[in-house]
């Protein structure tokens, strides 16, 4: 009897140790974060729209809330998929490309709100009545924002394709890059510029999608280009920031006339800044002959737009993912350290001032509400909260938790 008990105990111990070890190994392995989404807000008229981690869109009447009202925001669910933000699989560490969160900032055009979702759909909501379109499925995760230019919507997908769609979501053309697209396209003078993880920045004819040229960096391009006059500025994951001459009309016409299958030329950078300590992830901002760009080395660099020589730099305590914005004559920057900084760009010796500390990393782009002197910040630290920060008074005048929406 005693020996049976002992054997049972031994067996139990064996099974227990088995389970503990398996759990330890698996849990240590499962460090990949689930998709969160970092949709930035956008204001159209008096209404602010923002995507949520739940795959929904929140619409807020800002005139009411800025007057101190407590109106409950409108909520739309573009797709009835619930709030699956986990990884799935064993101990939630399996497939991590499933969740239905929203990374891109919504865009408003002609009374319709266009959104791209992380499950690969593009769709629109009729603002007046909340009616939703059938989705256009790209087949890859959408982590960038859709962009509307005149009667065409452009959106990149993690399947490496850039889509040009009509405003009723019919495909006009698509262009395939060599790797995933996580950034936003920029359209300027009939040319679409898009960065890809295949290390290339492409210039495409906006009408036909034909490649005009490409520029190849030494690392993946995850940031959105900035076009100023005749120069395209873009940072890459090779710690470098580039200035490239924009596509000319002649180059565009040449591309349109080029026979199918003939390779497009490769463009060289006009100037390179290579003094950064980590990747460039965000779009830059231009101000008075200067380029302001955030970097994952915790710094914001101010470069000369003509030569890309460093003029000065500001240091935060976290990575800078969100592009800087200009509001009330000050450059506003959000950082992973949870702080929103403000700098007077005219005062070359000015220190960066902390406007507010949200104690939550800021991934999403800030939205500067020029009319009201408010910067909207979508911060996330477990909870996703949208804040309205009045720059003049450094006061948070309104906040709303976007990931606790009840059906």
């Amino acid at each position, binding site marked *: 009897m005693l020996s049976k008990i002992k054997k049972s105990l031994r067996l139990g111990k064996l099974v227990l140790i088995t389970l503990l070890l398996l759990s330890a190994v698996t849990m240590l392995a499962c460090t990949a974060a*689930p998709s969160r989404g970092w949709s930035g807000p956008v204001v159209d008229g008096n209404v602010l729209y923002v995507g949520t981690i739940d795959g929904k869109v929140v619409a807020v009447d800002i005139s009411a809330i800025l007057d101190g009202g407590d109106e409950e925001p409108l909520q739309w669910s573009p797709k009835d998929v619930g709030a699956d933000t986990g990884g799935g699989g064993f101990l939630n560490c399996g497939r991590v490309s499933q969740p239905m969160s929203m990374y891109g900032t919504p865009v408003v055009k002609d009374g319709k709100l266009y959104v791209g979702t992380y499950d690969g759909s593009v769709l629109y909501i009729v603002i007046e009545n909340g009616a939703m379109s059938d989705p256009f499925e790209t087949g890859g995760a959408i982590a960038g924002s859709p962009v509307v230019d005149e009667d065409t919507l452009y959106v990149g997908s993690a399947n490496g394709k850039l889509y040009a769609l009509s405003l009723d979501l019919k495909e006009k053309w698509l262009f395939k890059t060599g790797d995933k697209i996580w950034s936003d396209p920029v359209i300027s003078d009939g040319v679409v510029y898009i960065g890809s993880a295949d290390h290339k920045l492409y210039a495409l004819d906006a009408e036909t999608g034909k490649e005009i040229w490409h520029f190849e960096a030494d*690392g993946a391009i995850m940031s959105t280009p900035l076009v100023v006059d005749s120069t395209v500025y873009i940072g890459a994951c090779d710690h470098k920031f580039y200035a490239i001459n924009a596509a000319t009309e002649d180059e565009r016409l040449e591309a349109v006339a080029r026979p199918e299958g003939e390779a497009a030329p490769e463009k060289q950078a006009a100037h390179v800044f290579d003094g950064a300590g980590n*990747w460039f992830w965000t779009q830059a901002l231009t101000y008075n002959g200067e380029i302001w760009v955030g970097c994952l080395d915790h710094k914001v660099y101010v470069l000369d737009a003509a030569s890309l020589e460093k003029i000065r730099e500001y240091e935060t305590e976290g990575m800078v993912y969100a592009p800087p914005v200009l509001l009330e004559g000050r450059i506003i920057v959000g950082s992973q350290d949870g702080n929103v900084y403000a700098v007077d760009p005219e005062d070359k010796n000015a220190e960066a001032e902390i406007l507010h500390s949200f104690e939550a990393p800021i991934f999403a782009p800030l939205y500067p509400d020029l009319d009201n002197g408010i910067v909207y910040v979508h911060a996330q630290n477990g909870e996703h909260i949208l804040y309205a920060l009045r720059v003049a008074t450094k006061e948070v005048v309104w906040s709303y938790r976007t990931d606790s929406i009840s059906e």
Partner: protein
Amino acid sequence: MDIFNLLFLNPILNFLILLSSVLFSSFGLAIIALTIIVRVIMMPLTVKQLKTSKKMTESMNTIKPKLEQLKKKFAKNPQKLQQETMKLYKEAGISPLGCLSSPMILSLIIQMPIFFGLYRAIIQAMAVTPQDFLGLSQYLYSWSVVTEALPVSGQFLWLNLADPDPYYVLPILVAASMWVSQKMITQPSTDPQQQSMSSMMQIMMPLMFAFITLTLPSGLGIYFVASGIASIVIQYFIFGWGNLFTRAPAKQTAELKTTKADKGKAGSVMPSQTYSSPQSPKVSGGFGLLGDIFDRLKGGKKSDTRADESPKGKEGTSAKEIANPEGSKYGKPGSKRKDG
């Protein structure tokens, strides 16, 4: 955790990405190559473990007659038997903790972070979501070859390394390689109950890993398979096919049943001897640390069985004869065997 990253995760992760750059931008090949490299680097430790276990087993064999005498002498006084047994172990330089003795612990402590680092590096490098990729930037050296290799390609053969295998081939390979690796180093037990437990573990572990592989990114499945196959190859070149083709000694069942009463008396004082007999040495199990621990656990049971249950053992028969009651050697006749 920062120290772990600094010493293990960061170097392994950067080297993994570097390898993928060298190996035709194939992250799958990089995982396989790094797994093999790590196993080769671990070889001295594996050999050290082996020597320690051999030494312990030999010492155990040396004191076995004395132990038997003690058992007879203090059959009615278990407490005294325990004291005398411990004294004997001390004199012979045997740790009563068996696998938990200091060389073993040291070996485990060194191996554990390396395997965890490798495991985590694979997950980290496959950064699927934008924030995974952002997170990756914090672990990388500023080597241009590393930044140029990113993002790593998720495609390998029919697999998307970030997703589970849709055709279930990997889980089958994981289970098969683990089973073969374990079977090669597992001694058939003469106790039916122990044999049953051993067989159950031999089946349970591969099945559990297969189940885990079903839902994990297939990059980790590649690691499991590569690690399993590396173990099989290493074991083959050192010991031949081991017990892969050996069947359990069913003939001994009836004989053993008569000895159960004896086992109850002496079993409680035996140390947790962890390795097989000198002629059945083994290297680390099929899945690195986990495999080692389970193999040792199983080895301990076998040793207990050998020492306590065999009637021949009481008569002073050598451990060699008991472990191979039918005189069978490792594997099939003619199979390779190198005891070095």
